[in-house]
């Protein structure tokens, strides 16, 4: 209680001191008061309250002799002269907040939003006899308890000496930005207009000199929060998916076997039963698994599982199969050296004519061995005879007559590649 009373007293003293200082500055004050104010800038808080009375007491008590002992240098005097700026009593100022509209009106506290551009309009009325030239406007956020302590200075706007004649008025707009980090704090806002009179004397007149509290405006849609929620939802979904996957992977094997037993109904059962140890019951497919139960056989195509039955299905010897493929490929290969045939991508242009001839002979011999190939016999004959003369014409006729579709040629190429070692052996033999 006592501390409160003391602080109230000190505030009153401060206010009195400030009023005195201002009036004395307007009338051309002694530099001591200004120096006193500037000297007190560094301290703040409770310490301020205690230093001020001693300062002012010293000032009032010591008076002239105490201050005269510290003779200021020329530089300091210039500074002090600059600081002697106060209002002119011939000028009347009023203000209006353009943004936010209606701020600081009678009955409403001055609340400013952070992160916005605050616009103020100042109105100046010249009640004197001479013209005033308005130079600049500036603003600052100060410590509310001590308006001489500046927390943030705002930019100075120049008005380039706008003339305001006697009896006339003028309006000036000033704007500044409040930093978003200053939310939920109160400051002393000063907006000052700087002007000079006809004699060139400068004045600094406060249009606004009051405490303002800053608040954070409600934006409505906050992008940050929105995307944070999306991120959390996705994380939760991911976690659920992970748990589901883990449960699926690490359930006991019995459950898996039971599932696949229900699923398998195809003829693969018969094929697997042939491979099983007892080989008796057709339905003993071991649940779609291998005989050892290690892996799942359902996905393997049927032809690979019929290991023992493969020979029986294809009624052709490997040798016959190989030469048959060569015959197919031979029709395509013959015209390689000369024709630049873009569509036959499987052709190898560097093969020489001699090898082509050798292949022809191989074709013919194989044909005789196999005892006729079928519909391809005729075109192979013709090609073998005519290829010596002009390859280019034959190429087209060969393709036309061979009756190959794209797929067949690809299969023929694959077969040819497989029998490549065999062919080289043939050439050496021939």
């Amino acid at each position, binding site marked *: 209680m006592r501390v409160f009373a003391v602080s109230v007293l000190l505030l009153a003293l401060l206010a009195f001191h400030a009023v005195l200082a201002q009036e004395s500055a307007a009338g051309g004050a002694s530099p001591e008061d200004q120096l006193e104010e500037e000297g007190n800038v560094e301290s703040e808080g409770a310490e301020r309250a205690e230093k001020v009375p001693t300062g002012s007491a010293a000032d009032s008590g010591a008076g002239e002799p105490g201050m005269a002992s510290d003779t200021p240098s020329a530089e300091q005097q210039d500074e002090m002269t600059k600081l002697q700026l106060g209002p002119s009593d011939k000028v*009347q100022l*009023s203000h*209006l907040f*353009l943004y936010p509209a209606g701020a600081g009106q009678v009955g409403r506290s001055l609340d400013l939003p952070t992160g916005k551009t605050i616009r103020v*309009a100042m*109105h100046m*009325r010249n009640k004197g006899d001479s013209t005033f030239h308005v130079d600049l406007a500036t603003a600052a956020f100060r410590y509310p308890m001590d308006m001489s302590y500046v927390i943030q200075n705002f930019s100075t706007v120049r*008005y380039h000496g*706008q003339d*305001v004649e006697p*009896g*006339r*008025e*003028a*309006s*000036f*707009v000033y704007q500044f930005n409040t930093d978003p980090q200053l939310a939920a704090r109160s400051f002393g806002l000063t907006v000052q207009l700087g002007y000079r009179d006809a004699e060139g004397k400068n004045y600094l007149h406060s249009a606004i000199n009051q405490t303002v509290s800053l608040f954070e405006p409600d934006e409505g849609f906050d992008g940050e929060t929105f995307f944070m929620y999306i991120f959390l939802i996705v994380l939760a979904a991911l976690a659920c998916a992970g748990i589901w996957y883990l449960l699926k992977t690490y359930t006991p094997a019995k459950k898996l076997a039971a599932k696949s037993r229900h699923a398998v109904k195809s003829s693969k059962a018969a094929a697997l039963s042939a491979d099983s140890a007892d080989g008796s019951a057709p339905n003993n497919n071991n649940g779609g698994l291998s005989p050892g139960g290690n892996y799942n056989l359902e996905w393997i195509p049927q032809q690979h599982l019929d290991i023992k039955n493969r020979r029986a299905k294809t009624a052709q010897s490997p040798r016959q199969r190989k030469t048959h493929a060569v015959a197919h490929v031979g029709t395509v290969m013959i015209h390689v050296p000369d024709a630049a045939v*873009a*569509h036959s991508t499987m052709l190898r242009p560097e093969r020489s004519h001699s090898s082509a001839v050798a292949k022809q002979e191989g074709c013919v011999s194989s044909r005789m061995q196999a005892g006729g190939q079928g*519909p391809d016999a005729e075109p192979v004959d013709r090609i073998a005879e005519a290829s010596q003369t002009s390859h280019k014409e034959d190429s*087209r006729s060969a*393709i*036309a*007559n*061979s*009756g190959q*579709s*794209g797929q067949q040629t690809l299969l023929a190429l694959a077969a040819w590649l497989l029998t490549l070692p065999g062919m080289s052996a043939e050439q050496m033999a021939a």
Partner: protein
Amino acid sequence: MSQLTACAFLIGLVIFTCGAAADSDGGAQLIGVKSIANNLIVKGMDVTVQYDIYNVGDKAAMNVQLEEDGFPIDYFAVRSGFQHVRWTRLPPGANVSHTLILTPLQTFVFNASHAVMRYKVSDEATGSTVGYTTSPGEIAVIETADYDRQFSAHAMDWLTFGMMTTPSIIIPFLLWYASVRKYSNLASHSSRKNN
């Protein structure tokens, strides 16, 4: 009797103090804000000048006139709005807006100065008070070509580009198409012949 005198004295005191507390003179005070709404001022395109007049005084302003003589006829053509406007009455706490739309006729740097307001501070006032609005300051009028370079659709440029790049695309396509057609014809022809 003493009560009457006391009352009279009090009333007189009140009137006196009312008259004496004329720090703000008690009349109307008009703040005029002149602003240019454009981001870019381009020769041949509209410039919107907005005037807002606020009455921050205690009384209604009478016969409010706004005079704008700061846009010379050689440099600006008035598209819409008036340069001399009059309002009969502006109550305290109210505001009015006025818009003037101009077209710059040349490319130059222009110093937009203040407009002049004249009004009577109250009904009883004898003479008009003259006030100046705010000045937007220096404005630079840019060429139409500079503006178009940045903002136009560039339709002709795209058309020219399309025409110049068409050969590089069409010629290989035609070659490919001819080739595909020829050999697919050949393939289908040969398969038909054999089957």
